[in-house]
């Protein structure tokens, strides 16, 4: 019974849990329910990934309506991989958020936080597993609306304007996707992704479909904070509660990158998007500019959360660059970086949240002397920071290795050089924080008794991520196998010629 509906579980569990969490009435109880549900979703995602790696893709007809008429949930190596990362991070963040939320969010809003988190998780899982383009839009909006709410829950009033800006930008992005999907439907009469890909292939070149592609790419570009459409991201990440930032930074934009991959490779076909429309050059230039501009912006910020937010935009540049290399190796590098970056940024933002928990603000000068007073937090921050820089034996190095070797495989030495130079800027912005933490003394007037290590419920999830940073940097078999299977699958299914057309009955 459960196995049969395995594909729907990552959506259904959090969706059902959301109202329950609101009704249980006590913050600690809500936390427990949410964490358990998220944990179950992780187990389901793990099962799905194993099934997919063993037997290819998996299809589930919602409500028993067969595709292409009904909504289809479709799971293959690519989305099972990302799904596992998202649900696992969600569980860890939920464990972490008990103390963090108690500190940063007013007590009457705790239940709302857990509810919104559940809705967001349901939306993100939905985006990942759905096989229907319109359904994807709906899940995108479910997760986005929950995200706006989450961002606005912080006690600092600036989170409100940040959330509002995010809402305006996000809605425009979603509406653009809606327009694009509408154009595709107009031309093809279908919304199922596989069906769409077959039917789009039938047209040599259609202005409607190309316009649809443009709308979708801009819409997704806003959602994934592709430079120069990233302006909503830094304020939202800076002012949101720390647990929310940790969750969003490591999942929401990653899922949007996945949406981009899905649209390019499954729906439009890589050949059409890159060769006919020349999208690879556009994406590559934007990605490289993002890496440099935003890494530079990260080096001049004072608020550490803003530093990491700009760093996130730069890192998204690496993922998009992987996609824009138009090769299975490049796509694989992008997919690996989705997973790896989730690990690094999750750990970093959790560490920053821990600092906020004790110090009460996260400007650069607040980090002074923390190396002595919060040794475990700062050690975790250091390791995750080294991972961002791309030091060997961390996941960051693995990402970089694959990305640069994918670029070199194509003889693209310029991109390889630029990627490596860009990562030098990470040395600067991480180094500034570490210097403050380890080489300066606690500011005058701070009570050293107050600034001590955070509770275990915050430390343990942080360190699980830090250790994952190291583990997957040394034993890369799981990530590379999954990512290369996914990349292979996406690339081949994107390049193959037209299979038989599913006729729609009148």
């Amino acid at each position, binding site marked *: 019974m459960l196995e049969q509906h395995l594909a729907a579980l990552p959506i259904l569990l959090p969706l059902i849990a959301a109202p329950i969490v609101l009704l249980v009435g006590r913050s600690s109880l809500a936390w427990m329910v949410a964490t358990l549900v998220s944990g179950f979703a992780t187990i389901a995602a793990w099962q799905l990934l194993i099934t997919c790696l063993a037997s290819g893709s998996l299809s589930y007809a919602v409500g028993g309506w067969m595709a292409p008429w009904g909504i289809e949930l479709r799971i293959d190596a690519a989305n099972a991989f990302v799904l596992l990362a998202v649900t696992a991070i969600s569980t860890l963040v939920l464990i972490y958020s008990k103390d963090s939320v108690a500190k940063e969010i007013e007590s009457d809003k705790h239940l709302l936080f857990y509810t919104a988190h559940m809705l967001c998780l349901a939306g993100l899982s939905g985006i990942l597993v759905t096989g229907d383009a319109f359904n994807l839009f709906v899940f995108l909006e479910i997760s986005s*609306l929950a995200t706006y*709410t989450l961002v*606005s829950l912080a006690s600092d009033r600036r989170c409100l304007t940040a959330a509002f800006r995010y809402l305006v930008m996000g809605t425009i992005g979603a509406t653009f996707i*809606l327009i694009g999907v*509408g154009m595709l*439907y107009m031309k093809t009469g279908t919304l199922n992704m596989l069906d769409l890909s077959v039917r789009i292939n039938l047209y040599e070149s259609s202005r409607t479909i190309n316009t649809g592609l443009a709308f979708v790419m801009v819409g997704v570009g806003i959602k994934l904070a592709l430079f120069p459409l990233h302006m909503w991201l830094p304020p939202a990440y800076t002012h949101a509660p720390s647990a929310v930032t940790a969750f969003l930074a490591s999942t929401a934009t990653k899922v949007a990158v996945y949406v981009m991959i899905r649209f390019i490779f499954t729906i439009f076909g890589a050949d059409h998007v890159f060769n006919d429309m020349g999208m690879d050059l556009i994406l590559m230039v934007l990605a490289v500019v993002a890496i440099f501009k935003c890494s530079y912006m990260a080096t001049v910020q004072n608020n550490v959360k803003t530093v990491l937010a700009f760093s996130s935009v730069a890192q998204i540049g690496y993922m998009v660059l992987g996609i824009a290399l138009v090769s299975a190796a490049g796509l694989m590098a992008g997919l690996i970086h989705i997973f790896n970056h989730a690990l690094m940024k999750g750990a970093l933002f959790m560490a920053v949240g821990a600092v906020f928990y004790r110090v009460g603000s996260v400007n650069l000068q607040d980090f002074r002397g923390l190396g002595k007073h919060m040794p475990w937090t700062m050690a975790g921050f250091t390791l995750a920071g080294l991972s961002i820089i791309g030091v060997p034996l961390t996941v960051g190095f693995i990402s970089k290795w694959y990305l640069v070797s994918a670029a070199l495989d194509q003889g693209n030495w310029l991109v390889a050089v630029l990627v490596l130079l860009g990562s030098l800027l990470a040395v600067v912005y991480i180094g500034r924080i570490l210097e403050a933490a380890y080489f300066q003394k606690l500011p005058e007037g701070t009570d050293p008794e107050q600034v001590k290590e955070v509770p275990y419920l915050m430390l343990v999830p942080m360190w699980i991520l830090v250790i994952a940073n190291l583990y997957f940097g040394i034993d890369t078999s799981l990530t590379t196998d999954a990512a290369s299977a996914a990349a292979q699958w996406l690339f081949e299914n994107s390049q193959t010629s037209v299979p038989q057309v599913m006729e729609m009955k009148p």
Partner: protein
Amino acid sequence: MSFILDYYNYWVVVFLMMTGFYIVISANNLVKKIAGLNIFQTSVFMLYISMGKVTGGTAPIVVEGVELYSNPLPHVLILTAIVVGVATTSVGLALIIRIKRAYGTVEENEFKNSDDAI
């Protein structure tokens, strides 16, 4: 001329879309921004509805003696999209209420700190 007349529904959509977009960008008042966003979304609803129309077809309700119906699927889709739009509007308005409480204004140019600009 026929180019304009044949595609008049699209012209309406494009006009509404640009109007909404312009309001979102230029309005100083946050409520007006939300209103602009609504107009922007509505234009897309129109796009969907108008493309479901089949020439000569009636409303997609099964009646005896009628053979040709318009496509009902876009209507269903847009029902969902309208729900999403309403939800977005309500979240936006709720945010505005909290902004008003926190800052005492909903006019963008009256925020003192330039960091808060939207």
